[in-house]
């Protein structure tokens, strides 16, 4: 099973590197939206922590939705038909989860780099914030993968993926924003542990639901 997951993942990454238009288009999306924010906050720049954190996560949210909603559409119909014979649904969905996670980690760190170089940086405890970025990418990818699989079933789907994913992703995003605000001051495990456990709990629910539900969804 692990072998098959990684071979699918390897194939996806190889296609991504060969075509690479998705990679660059999402990168461009991130950079141009941050640049718009940068221009609109002239001449003072972002002054408050609240603005910094919320704009940061909103940009990550929108670019991840753009990135993840493509991950199922790039599969052609005949390739899907081939997958039915050689793969189990669990293998396919886990490879997609890992692939989306890698993609969103890329988006998140690109956003962090460009954002902090253009708009300044409010972060104090870096090690915690970088851990948070990893866990945030993991939660966002867990949340969006099943929704994009649902969107893939529906024609006329890019809007629908966004509409369906917003309400589901809000609890995760609220926790992430709250934790990011904390990371602008001295780190202390006592302040964050409740939210941190909750985030991990939500991830467990999301992965379990994705694993249970995808096998009903993928066959036509």
């Amino acid at each position, binding site marked *: 099973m692990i072998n098959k997951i990684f071979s699918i993942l390897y194939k996806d990454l190889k296609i991504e590197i060969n075509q690479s238009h998705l990679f660059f288009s999402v990168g461009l999306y991130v950079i141009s939206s941050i640049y718009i924010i940068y221009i609109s906050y002239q001449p003072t720049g972002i002054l408050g922590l609240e603005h910094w954190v919320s704009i940061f996560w909103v940009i990550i949210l929108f670019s991840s939705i753009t990135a993840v909603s493509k991950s199922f559409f790039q599969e052609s119909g005949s390739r899907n038909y081939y997958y039915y014979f050689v793969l189990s649904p669990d293998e396919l969905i886990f490879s997609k989860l890992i692939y989306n996670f890698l993609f969103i980690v890329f988006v998140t760190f690109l956003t962090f780099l460009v954002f902090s170089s253009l708009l300044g940086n409010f972060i104090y405890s870096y090690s915690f914030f970088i851990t948070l970025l990893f866990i945030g990418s993991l939660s966002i990818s867990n949340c969006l993968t*099943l*929704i994009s699989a*649902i969107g893939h*079933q*529906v024609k*006329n789907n890019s809007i*629908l993926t966004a*509409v*369906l994913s*917003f*309400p*589901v992703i*809000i*609890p995760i995003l*609220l926790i992430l924003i709250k934790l990011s605000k904390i990371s602008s001051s001295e780190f202390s495990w006592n302040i964050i542990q*409740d*939210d941190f456990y*909750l985030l991990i*709990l*939500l991830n467990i*629910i999301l992965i379990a*639901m994705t694993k249970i*539900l995808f096998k*009903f*969804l993928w066959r*036509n």
Partner: protein
Amino acid sequence: MKLVKTLSVLLLIYTAAAGILLEVPRLPILNETIRVLYFHVPMWFTMIFLLLLSSFNAYKFISTKNIKYDLISYNYAHVGVYFGVLGIVTGMIWANYTWGTFWTNDPKLNGSAVGLLIYFGYFVLRNSIEDESKKAKVSSVYSVFAFSMLIPLIFILPRLTDSLHPGNGGNPGFNVYDLNSQLRLVFYPAVIGFICLGLWIANIKFKLLKLTDKR
């Protein structure tokens, strides 16, 4: 079903009469508005109960592929969302008298509003698919997924932070207000009565849905 209807009528008449007439604890700020407990909280209980039935039937559909369960699930979700809207409206009227405003930025309020948005998304999803069997499959999967996200939104998230809403931010439910169990006397019958009413409405709506449905 007959039992449900009888229970619903009797208990709701009792709730309406006793909820207005019986003695309630006198508390500052709350005063007589404490009676909203008999009408506002049962709305949410009913909503959660109906949505639970909805997602249970959705799961039954995806494991058996019997299209009947999908209709039942859709029907329960529909009625459940009506009760959710009523819950929000009654809560807003109460908030206007106690907090002085219809809506505040409070975790419990945000959670319930987002929870309703999830289900509005479910209706959008259903309307956007033409093919009947695909509609049933996709919306059932989304329904189960949405319900599993609704539970942390409404029950877990608001309890972790400070909240104006009674029963949150470490407040142990409404036990604070009813030292002499005066409120329980009406509250529990009200919950059962409204749940029975929800089931009754869902039953009638399901008959209507079966008549208008062309399958």
